[in-house]
């Protein structure tokens, strides 16, 4: 409190600190941080969050110095904000709704805010607003790993917990990343599934989203690696094409593949738009039944094509579980059960216990495979 009264206006200091961190000598930056701490404590006190939190949050502020207390109870009345890539993404919507529901389970409150376009910098102003609203945690599906870094670090300094989900930020800018499944597993399992369907022989191709989508390219990398194993010596990846997550373009690229490679036996489309477009095209073309389509899609989107026999199976993690896990992980962070260090364990409601992995990553589990037998049990 003494530090606070010693400064003319805490608000301006804060702002300056945020805007020009690079130019401030170290000791001043430290002083600013201290003020921020003090301020966070006072504000939290008057801001109407539960009184019990005040002490903890003061101590946990710097993040790195804090110790995890696995037995700490989950706090009540936590405020979470979900910040998806863009508010109209159907998949992220399911995820956020489920996360908000999970927050209700442990007496917290969640909301979803976000930009209408998924450009690199569109999330920045939302983060700033959330900081001002003094949320307890921000859960973000980052449009760009680096563009959101500055404001997120600012949030962490103010003791707002930052959890990335679906799409990671740079590791320094968040405390946890909830990974849908390990990239390696996603990539390899898709080749394994398709190989089984094709009896380990024949030409295959990949229909991806955009040429520079990080997650797609990582998965494709693992697919290629998996194909190098001797078990797949009779399978050949002939081409990777990009449908840009546009219906018409995905149609055209699928048509191109099927005509240019008459011996093509299978297509993997690790993108929900791509697999639905390819399935729609194949379902009423002469290629139906001659080529196997597999990949990542949602059950609602693919239900028709599973039922009419165009597609035998596809996979996806359950976005509901992903949002649920994200919510519990953020609560565990905010309650001091975990700090984001490797090896810490916490309980995620009905999903059971999870362990924080390397780089603060928590992995949901292997993707679920959907086919005729189970598709009607899933609605998302």
């Amino acid at each position, binding site marked *: 409190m003494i530090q606070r009264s010693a400064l003319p206006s805490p608000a301006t200091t804060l702002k300056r600190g945020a805007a020009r961190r690079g130019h401030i000598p170290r000791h001043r930056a430290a002083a600013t941080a201290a003020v921020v701490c003090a301020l966070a404590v006072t504000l939290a006190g008057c801001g109407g969050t539960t009184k019990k939190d005040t002490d903890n949050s003061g101590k946990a502020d710097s993040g790195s110095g804090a110790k995890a207390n696995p037995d700490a109870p989950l706090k009540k009345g936590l405020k979470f904000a979900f910040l998806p890539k863009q508010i109209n993404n159907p998949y*992220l919507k399911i995820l956020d709704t489920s996360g908000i529901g999970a927050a209700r389970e442990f007496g917290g409150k969640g909301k979803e805010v976000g930009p209408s376009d998924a450009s690199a910098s569109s999330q920045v102003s939302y983060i700033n607003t959330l900081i001002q609203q003094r949320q307890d945690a921000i859960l973000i599906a980052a449009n760009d790993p680096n563009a959101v870094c500055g404001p997120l670090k600012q949030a962490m300094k103010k003791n707002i917990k930052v959890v990335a989900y679906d799409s990671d930020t740079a590791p320094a800018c968040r405390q946890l990343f909830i990974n849908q499944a390990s990239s390696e597993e996603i990539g390899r399992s898709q080749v394994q599934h398709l190989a089984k369907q094709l009896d380990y022989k024949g030409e295959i191709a990949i229909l991806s989203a955009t040429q520079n989508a990080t997650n797609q390219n990582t998965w494709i990398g693992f697919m290629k690696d998996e194909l190098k194993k001797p078990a797949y010596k009779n399978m050949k990846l002939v081409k990777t094409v990009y449908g840009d997550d546009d219906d018409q373009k995905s*149609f055209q*690229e699928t*048509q191109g*593949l099927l*005509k*240019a490679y008459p011996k093509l036996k299978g297509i993997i489309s690790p993108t929900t738009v791509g697999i639905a477009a390819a399935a729609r095209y194949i379902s009423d*073309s002469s290629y139906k039944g001659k080529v196997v389509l597999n990949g990542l899609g949602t059950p*609602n*989107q693919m239900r028709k094509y599973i039922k009419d026999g165009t597609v035998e199976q596809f996979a996806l993690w359950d976005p509901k579980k992903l949002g649920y896990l994200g919510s519990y992980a953020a609560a565990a962070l905010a309650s001091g059960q975990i700090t984001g260090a490797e090896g810490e364990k916490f309980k995620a409601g009905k999903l059971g216990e999870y362990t924080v992995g390397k780089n603060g990553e928590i992995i949901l589990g292997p993707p679920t495979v959907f086919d005729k037998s189970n598709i009607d049990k899933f609605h998302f």
Partner: protein
Amino acid sequence: MTVTVEKPAPAAETERSARSLVDAVFRAREISIAGALVLLVLFTWVAEPRFLNDQGVKDLLLNAAILVLLAVGQSVVVITRNIDLSVGSVVGLSAFACGKFVSGTDHGVLTVLLLGVVVGAVCGLVSGSLVSFGKVPALVVTLGMLYIIQGLDYWWAQGEQINAADVPQSVLDLGSGSVLGLPYLPLISIAVLAGTAYVLRTYRSGRELYAIGSSPEAARLAGVPIRRRVLAAYLFSGAVSGFAGALWLARFGTVVADNAHGWELTVVSAVVVGGVAIVGGTGTVWGAALGALLLTTIGSALAVLKVDSFWADAIAGALLLAAISVDRIVNVRMTRALRKRSAR
């Protein structure tokens, strides 16, 4: 340029020969696009015979159908020296509205198409009123409409998705079925195209659209009801876009809020490549349709030729620049030729 405004008798002969010259030049444009198209198709066919098998031809026609429709609507607006940049959003909104409407219940195909047309026409009416009565530049109005309609659509959809399983089979059949081996969608596009072309060529109101684009001032003096005609052009473009939205649902089955995002630019490219001058007054919907067919065929051909798809965009851009340059050169030469003739 090609307007038949009453003229004194002695000039009639010059007028006729001038008109045939103009016609010839623009027929040449359509012929050259058709030529390029034929060359492209032949080349791809030789490299990959499956490009033109039954399925291949069907694919080419289906791929072009929606863009051709949009290009026809856009040409009518561009001919009047205006532009409609909101088409992409209108298609998105209409596709989502239709999807929401049919979701789970079968209302019959015609009702769905009608709904699409109505949604589009309302959007067109708003843009058209602002441009014609509000006298706001078309570029600004339709750009604003692009964002407004898109925002409305996002707000409505809230991330919802219409899936193929929710769409009744009758609607999906419209997108994939065919009669006598010809798929429905291209047939619909050709019908709309032919009707529009006929009205533009023979009806007085159609010719007046060209007059407005050629010289708004002259058209006004000649007593052309400019505002009404421009409003009608936007109404038409909107209705056609809305119609295309309903067909989008039929064709792709899966619909989200941002369908056809960014298509306005593809449509304008198709129109300009097809010889409808961006400054208005010239061009035909046949040309625009050929332009649309050329652009989608390039995409399909490159995919079949195993060329990376980003080249399709680059080629479309190059074509656009070439088309505009040719327009400019032809324009200068023709003005000179016409001046020589009338001096004789």
